[in-house]
């Protein structure tokens, strides 16, 4: 049997083997706007810069723990790896809301990319169970220009039904590197009735000729962590404080995303310590 059957099981495991630590350090330029999403993926200093896929509809790749930019992880083999707690210290002058995600796959396109099919598809199925789907997150990889573009994507939903279409989403002029290009939220809204995405097949530019590039990724949100006072260190306990024991799949490509709270620009440093345990 894999997994923890009880709290005593967690204690027993902690007493018999060390928890697994995953230390992350990212430093990235910040141009923050309240409520706008961001991904702490592409930044470099102090940690590996996240890999940026080749530009175009043909550049989609799957991501795993060996992908540059992912937080290090040791395989749990046939057992289950759970997140027990997470620590975060961020240096910005703004407050932050963080979401730890497993980045399943991604592709990079110009925000004015002509209509077409991703070939290969942006395929997230390697770490999705049957009937499970991820969410579509978009981040800027080359700052967007003036004007706005509107686009949608076709995808296969959590049940394996293809030709599903996201809502049209419109970019914000001059969206900055690492930020979501959207005015609010982090994810592309899905077709009514869908709760997740297994792969993305198509891109449709509805309007606009804005410049700049974006990364489209399929992510699985795992855990939330809030740092209500900047520069302080905060920890979230996923056993007692938030009873959820997030499951981290073998080879998960872990990184932080989230939402800016304060405005401003500068450099922000994220220091993370994940404590995981194999059960």
């Amino acid at each position, binding site marked *: 049997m894999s997994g923890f059957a*009880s709290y005593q099981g967690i204690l027993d495991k902690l007493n018999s083997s060390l928890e697994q630590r995953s230390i992350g350090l990212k430093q990235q330029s910040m141009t923050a706007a*309240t409520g706008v999403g961001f991904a702490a993926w592409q930044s470099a200093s102090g940690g590996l810069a996240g890999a940026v896929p080749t530009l175009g509809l043909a550049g989609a790749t799957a991501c795993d723990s060996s992908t540059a930019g992912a937080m290090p992880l040791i395989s749990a083999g046939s057992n289950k790896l759970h997140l027990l707690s997470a620590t975060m210290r961020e240096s910005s002058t703004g407050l932050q809301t963080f979401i730890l995600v497993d980045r399943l796959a991604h592709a990079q396109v110009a925000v004015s990319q002509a209509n077409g099919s991703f070939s290969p598809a942006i395929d997230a199925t390697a770490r999705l169970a049957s009937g499970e789907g991820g969410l579509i997150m978009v981040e800027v990889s080359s700052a967007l220009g003036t004007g706005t573009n509107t686009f949608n994507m076709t995808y296969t939903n959590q049940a394996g039904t293809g030709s599903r279409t996201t809502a049209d989403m419109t970019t914000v002029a001059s969206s900055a590197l690492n930020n979501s290009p959207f005015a609010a939220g982090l994810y592309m809204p899905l077709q009514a009735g869908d709760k997740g995405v297994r792969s993305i097949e198509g891109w449709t530019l509805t309007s606009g000729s804005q410049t700049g590039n974006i990364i489209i990724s399929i992510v699985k949100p795992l855990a939330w962590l809030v740092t209500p006072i900047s520069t302080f260190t905060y920890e979230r306990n996923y056993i007692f404080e938030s*009873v959820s024991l997030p499951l981290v799949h073998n080879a998960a490509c872990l990184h932080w995303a989230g939402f800016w709270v304060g405005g401003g620009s500068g450099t922000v440093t994220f220091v993370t310590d994940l404590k995981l345990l194999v059960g």
Partner: protein
Amino acid sequence: MAGFSNLDAIINAISVNSKKQALTFQKTGANSPAAGTWVTMWTATGIPSAGSYPTAGLGNAATCDSSTAGAMPFTNSTAPATMHMLGVDAFSTQVGSSLFVDRLAHVQLAHNVNGTISPALDGTARLGTGEGAQLIAIVSVTLGVAANTFTITYTNQDGTGSRVTPSFTTTANQTVGKTAPASSVGLFIPLQAGDTGVRSVQSIALTSGSNAVGNFTLDLVRPLSYIPFSIASVGSARDHVLELPNLVRVRDSACLASYFFGTASTATTLVGEIRIAEN
């Protein structure tokens, strides 16, 4: 056996049996609250997609479930297991509070409605014996320049019919999405003395006023979880296992939806996840 007998059973369900589901939502308000008023997020776009109302009329009451457009989709429990809410993580771009509900049934009515709701507005499909729901009136088409006053006849939590609410008066010129009664009434329409809830609604009586402009809905809902947002865009958390140990029951096919209480007149974006698990 239904339900969780102890914390170990929850840990076992999450880890060994993989019975936890995380329901992500991202709703951008279609409606702007006024300070101190509630608005529905039912018609907000995002994840899940926007919900809609039945055609206006006393004969068009409809039940809602997890397949209704606007509901957060999830997988039902496997009998005899029962589904429970473990917690919520979320943020709002505006300071305020959210209430998550199981939306049992709804009907849309003209501002000068007076008569029998047939078929009845019926919440019994997901109410246990002796359990009642709450009534919320939301403006669906902006109301006219004069207020109207109503009473509602309903069947209470015990199945006793012909119960009558105290009179409530709509707010003249109230705009779409807001509660139809004055904000001093709060979110829920008060019930006859001694009643804790409503199982079904049989009729509505116009006791004074005649303004015919506008429509409002009657939403029959089962409140599940409140979450406050004391700082804009800073995440908030609710743990329903240890912090607020009520393990809110989420019945199979529940129509999960939300309302937002604003402290300003700006529409909000809500992003978060609800964690549910079955034993």
